[in-house]
């Protein structure tokens, strides 16, 4: 349906040469609304927030003949009672109460043909608004498979609105739907759904029961086939997947496989991105004269952005797999079986998706908390997910484990796993505490639709993935860029030249031969702002067993925790390459305090590990928390609570380990 005039129409959003009619899709969460939206718009859509809210919707252009139409996909709804933020915003959007968003010219009510009666409940509320409405009867192919036949004319008469049967999955009826949208927009019909015309005498502001009675009557008069259609396959699968014990077992296996797939499949693209940015930095650096500008572009900008984009493959895979699991119907079962366990710490079953996602990265995890309806539950989940061991912690864990158990793979693996367990336990503990103090009140009891299982659509999942990944890049990317530049400046200025150093150090560097660059870099970082800040705050971290170099690392890794490894590499004089070829480990193992005692004792290593499991140390996560909670209050709380927790825990571990002579 693309036309050659498409490009010329793109800037219309800002101009107003003529009115572009808008059409909004309204329907139940599992009615296939999003599939229909993707079918109609293809890839020409983008995600946006309604002003002043965190409620997302997607919009895109479609064309009916010559006419260009703005299509809006509203959040899925069960009712217009305005109980949840999604419902409030969707209702406001339909009636045009949102600033700069006039009421849509036409509503397309998406109904699931296989579950018509329940869908008609929302339909009765939407039709009552008396907005021009067109009904898209979706999943008509599945209904036919279940032996249902729908009398479209009868249904249309009952609903007082035109009805088009479609299947977003097969594409059946999509062209007719587009044509009908164009036709209705050309001659907007006044909505006629009312008591007199449409036999819903009790429907105006009536009780729920009367709406369902009406829905049943409409279904009986327009659908022929099984009285209560159901899928035997779904029931059979649920006997295992939703089972009290089997369900948990299957859930564990599914999650394990998901994670193995994420870490395995993301490895190659991550290496490629890493390599690409490294060579890009070198190439671009080669074009620029040596000096601050080259360092700014190569290390600050390219290094900083590359450091974030390297996690993108994992994040995309995570989004993709979650979208597929959700589309298949399994995610609802997982929330169902996990609910009993999660309740014990006061969180809803739905919180498991963010908690698992956070093991790759806290940012997509925080974005995925949107599926939790209750505001307090959602906030509690947002606050605890950064405690999960994300990918960026892995380099730090790897460093500590290699220092402690270089020749003992079993103990190394146990310590590694222990770090993950510590993160999970701390998160659940914090959740439990939050629900009893700052966010009191019982969480909303579980109530979830368990839709029929179906083969998920890869196309829809890919579109969702691209959308979400783009939001991640825009959010995290801009923050990361700013932070990278600030940190670069802190680590670069004031600039130290070889001539500025005391004579004996100059001599040492001159005598070092191959190692001269690394020693100069060490001296430069030591004398930079970051280095000075680290030395000033070193007494604060001394009770944790950290020397001043590690304190500098805490400063430089404030915005992105994995930076500690390269900072230690520079400060211990092995250069950044040393972090990769293992010379860092040798250098750290032999490092001594001024009194000659070893720096990296077992106690210090454990303390460093515990600190990095629990500390916030990730500004992009905080930026996303701010976006999702609408202010700096909760990101500040997150930073303070996690930092205090990390400090106290690391202090305890160090002091206990020292006390019991584990040196």
């Amino acid at each position: 349906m693309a036309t050659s005039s498409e490009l010329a129409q793109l800037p219309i959003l800002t101009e107003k040469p003529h009115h572009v009619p808008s059409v909004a899709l309204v329907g139940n969460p599992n009615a296939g609304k999003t599939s229909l939206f993707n079918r109609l718009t293809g890839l020409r859509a983008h995600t946006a927030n309604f002003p002043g809210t965190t409620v997302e919707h997607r919009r895109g252009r479609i064309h009916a003949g010559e006419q260009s139409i703005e299509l809006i996909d509203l959040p899925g709804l069960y009712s217009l009672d305005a109980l949840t933020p999604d419902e409030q915003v969707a209702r406001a959007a339909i009636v045009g109460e949102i600033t700069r968003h006039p009421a849509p010219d036409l509503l397309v009510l998406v109904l699931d043909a296989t579950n018509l009666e329940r869908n008609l409940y929302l339909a009765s509320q939407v039709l009552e608004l008396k907005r021009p409405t067109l009904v898209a009867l979706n999943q008509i192919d599945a209904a036919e498979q279940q032996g249902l036949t729908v009398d479209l004319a009868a249904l249309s008469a009952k609903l007082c609105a035109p009805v088009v049967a479609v299947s977003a999955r097969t594409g059946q009826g999509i062209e007719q739907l587009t044509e009908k949208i164009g036709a209705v927009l050309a001659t907007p019909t006044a909505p006629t759904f009312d008591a007199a015309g449409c036999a819903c005498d009790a429907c105006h502001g009536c009780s729920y029961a009367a709406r369902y009675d009406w829905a049943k009557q409409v279904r009986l008069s327009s659908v022929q086939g099984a009285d209560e259609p159901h899928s035997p396959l779904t029931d059979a699968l649920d006997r295992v997947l939703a089972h009290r014990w089997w369900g948990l077992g299957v859930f564990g296996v599914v999650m394990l496989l998901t994670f193995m797939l994420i870490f395995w499949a993301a490895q190659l693209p991550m290496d490629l991105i890493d390599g690409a940015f490294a060579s890009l930095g070198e190439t671009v650096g080669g074009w620029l004269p040596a000096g601050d500008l080259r360092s700014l572009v190569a290390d600050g900008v390219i290094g900083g952005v590359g450091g974030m984009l390297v996690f993108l493959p994992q994040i995309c895979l995570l989004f993709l797999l979650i979208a597929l699991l959700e589309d298949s119907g399994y995610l609802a079962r997982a929330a169902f079986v996990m609910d009993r366990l999660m309740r014990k710490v006061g969180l809803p079953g739905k919180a498991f998706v963010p908690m698992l996602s956070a093991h790759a990265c806290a940012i997509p995890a925080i974005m995925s908390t949107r599926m939790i309806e209750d505001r307090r539950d959602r906030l509690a989940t947002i606050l605890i997910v950064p405690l999960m061991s994300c990918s960026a912690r892995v380099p730090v864990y790897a460093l500590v484990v290699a220092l402690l158990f270089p020749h003992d793979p079993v103990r190394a693996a146990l310590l590694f796993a222990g770090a993950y367990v510590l993160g999970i336990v701390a998160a659940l503990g914090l959740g439990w505490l939050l629900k009893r103090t700052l966010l009191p009140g019982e969480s909303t009891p579980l109530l979830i639709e368990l839709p029929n299982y179906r083969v998920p659509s890869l196309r829809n999942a890919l579109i969702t993935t691209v959308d979400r990944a783009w939001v991640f890049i825009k959010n995290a990317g801009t923050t990361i860029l700013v932070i990278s530049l600030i940190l670069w400046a802190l680590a670069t200025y004031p600039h130290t030249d070889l001539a500025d150093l005391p004579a004996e150090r100059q001599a040492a560097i001159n005598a070092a031969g191959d190692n001269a660059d690394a020693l100069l870099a060490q001296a430069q970082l030591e004398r930079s702002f970051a280095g000075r800040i680290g030395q000033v705050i070193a007494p604060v971290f001394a009770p944790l067993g950290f020397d001043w170099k590690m304190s500098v690392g805490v400063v430089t890794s404030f915005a992105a925790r994995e930076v500690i490894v390269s900072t230690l590499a520079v400060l211990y004089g092995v250069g950044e390459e040393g972090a990769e070829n293992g010379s860092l480990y040798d250098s750290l193992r032999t490092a001594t305090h001024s009194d000659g005692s070893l720096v990296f004792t077992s106690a210090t290593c454990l303390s460093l590990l515990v600190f990095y499991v629990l500390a916030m140390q990730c500004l992009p996560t905080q930026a996303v928390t701010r976006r999702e909670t609408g202010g700096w209050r909760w990101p500040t709380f997150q930073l303070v609570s996690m930092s205090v927790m990390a400090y106290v825990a690391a202090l305890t571990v160090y002091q206990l380990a020292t006390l019991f002579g584990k040196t």
Partner: protein
Amino acid sequence: MVKIADPLEARGLTLSQLRSGTAAVVSEVRGAAGDISRLQALGVCQGRRVEMMQAGDPLIVRVVGSKVGLSHRLADSVIVCTETCPTQTARV
């Protein structure tokens, strides 16, 4: 309208007490207004037939053609009757 004891209600079951494979008709939904609205929007509403698919906590019912999972506590607030609902007409 203060009732001390309603013999019909005393005989009524809650949804959480239904055994797997049995069906009943909802006669009343009690509890917090928000919870009631959420239940009703999914079809757990006066006069609807509910079928217990899997008892326990949480439990699964089929109502108005779709499967719904809900916590035992929420199901406790739904009064059902396994045959006809004598109170239904009286309440409307």
